[in-house]
């Protein structure tokens, strides 16, 4: 039991730090609240879904950016937008913020950015 407690505490600390650093925001807390006895793995499930989705999106973006002929910024932008939405779903605040910046780069057609 002690181990469990320890792990729990670690988890809490880690969460807190993530929050502090701005990686996570309130949404994550909300998700945690949603978890209950009926769906004990709720957060885990959501997070995994998120990662899957993310991976796809990032791949898309990478491919789009690697285009030799000319980067299709619209596509990149669309992917980023989706990523932004997804990240906000689990409270990945920083990711979301990065997305916002990313999008302005897209608008400026700034590949380097």
């Amino acid at each position: 039991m002690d181990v469990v407690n320890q792990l729990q505490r670690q988890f809490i600390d880690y969460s807190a730090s993530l929050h502090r650093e701005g990686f996570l925001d309130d949404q994550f807390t909300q998700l945690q609240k949603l978890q209950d006895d009926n769906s004990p793995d709720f957060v885990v499930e959501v997070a995994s879904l998120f990662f899957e989705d993310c991976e796809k999106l990032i791949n898309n973006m990478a491919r789009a950016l690697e285009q030799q002929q000319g980067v299709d910024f619209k596509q990149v932008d669309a992917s980023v937008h989706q990523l932004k939405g997804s990240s906000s779903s689990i409270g990945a605040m920083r990711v979301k913020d990065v997305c916002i910046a990313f999008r302005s780069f897209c608008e400026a057609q700034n590949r380097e950015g």
Partner: protein
Amino acid sequence: PFHFSFSYASNLPVFYPFNPYNKNISKKPTTSPKKKNMVLAESGFSSPRNDAFPAGLRVLVVDDDPTWLKILEKMLKKCSYEVTTCCLAREALNLLRERKDGYDIVISDVNMPDMDGFKLLEHVGLEMDLPVIMMSVDGETSRVMKGVQHGACDYLLKPIRMKELRNIWQHVFRKKIHEVRDIESLEGFESIQMTRSGYDLFDDGHFLSGDDTTSGRKRKDADNKHDDRELSDPSSTKKARVVWTVDLHQKFVKAVNLIGFDKVGPKKILDLMNVPWLTRENVASHLQKYRLYLSRLQKESDIKNSFIGMKHSDLPSKDSTASFGPNKAMNMIPDDVPNGTYSFSASNSLAQNVDLKGQGDLKGITSAPVAEPKGALSIDIHDSHEAKSTQMSFDHSLGSVDSAVSFASFNSTTPLQYPWTEIPEIQFKQECEPLHLENGFSQLPLPGPSMIENEANRSRIEVKPLLDECRSNFVEHLGPVGAEDLFPIQSKSQSLNNQVFDLISATKSSMKTQDVGLNYLADSEFALRNLNASGVGVPLATLSEDLQICWLQGDCYPMNYGLQDLECPTYDNPALMAETPFHLYDVLRFDHEHLFDPTENYAIDQGLFA
């Protein structure tokens, strides 16, 4: 798992089927007889049970992001709502159509790959008249405004909080109340009495005999007086929607036109329609939607002034819906069924030919007095039996005419020629899925010189989708009749006509329609008139009839295609837009003001013959 079959057998008076004691709420919307209570709650006229109301709300969530779907589902369940999720807009529409009363509210994301969230919003509003909530990460004012314009009840920003979801029931409630109010205001005081007593009946029935289905039936009868509702399940709520079949809608439109659009009122319409079981409320709400649709079309036509063309978007796959119009009141939603899609790629080439021919012919037509084509083409696209909206997008593009593409706008004295450059593209989707009928009408450029002068007048074809559900399962092919009729109007090239006709025939044959029938309101009449124009132009009188094109397939949704204004745009290229998954509506409005009551719309029935 407890399925929501909350039958009246239980003595619990509930508005929604829900089990407060069991959290495992089935995802499927309940189809049981409980739905009826729904309205009771909303009527709010007397309900000690209101406190139970929000629970059990049947929500449909649409979002392409699986993460969000999961989260929302969980949140909504926590609110004791009944949740159904789907990630495709088309699928959502299918679900909605399958079960007209299966859901109370729809929550949809704005950005979705297969269909624009706003479009979906419109469709839902028009077809099912359900409250729709939009969500997005993007909270920019312009987006939010767009959402509201398209009829969204609310616009939520992601990430969404639980508390925001808790209150969504207010939209459902509000809507019910408003519907009652609208009916009342439309029909005047007397209807209030009727309605009230109707409600009382319900309430009494419900309260007193809460545990037997007879009360439900009583309610239904008292309220709907429809025993021939083909759609609803026996336990439909008192607000069970009238099925606006093609016939019914035709009658409706006829009545409206007879009375005069401006002077129309539900009672008059009802009287004219002479449908015994139809209530004034039904007519009133239908009228309201019709009006909204018209105004929506007008706006659209304003936007698309340069084209006199209706793009008839085809329905790509099962659920494509094309919505147009900010008001959800009027929605033309094409349901597409993958099976029955026939796109008219051929039409393109035909159109080209037509253009060429048209050009030659148009010149000859210059002098012919043309009556302002005043006709409303109603194209109904029938989706699955519930489809209430028809989607028709007509592509009218003026082919490039050497002298300039112009639609002759006509005034009372000006001959009007209605060019159709493109053959209506008709796509049928077979119904097991909604049948989509896509018509692309291209207008042949009117003979440049004379027509251009009429530039002042704007001609636009207005397509008014009528919220009719057509029960009839026949769709007449628009092509043969409509095209034929229309073409003579515009150009007199025989070959053109033939071409068009051929095209249409081809389309027809290619269409897999089950029971698709086209109804022409004044088919023969129209044809006659058209011909009268010696192949040139359409005598005004001709067009003044209601042509309703109904695509019936199970349900049809007649669209009124009103030709009101003719514009004389200049075209370079005919643009026949072959539609893809999305339907675009280009509605052009024709002003009839010179010759007709400007607000009159004629519906052209189209049907596809199976």
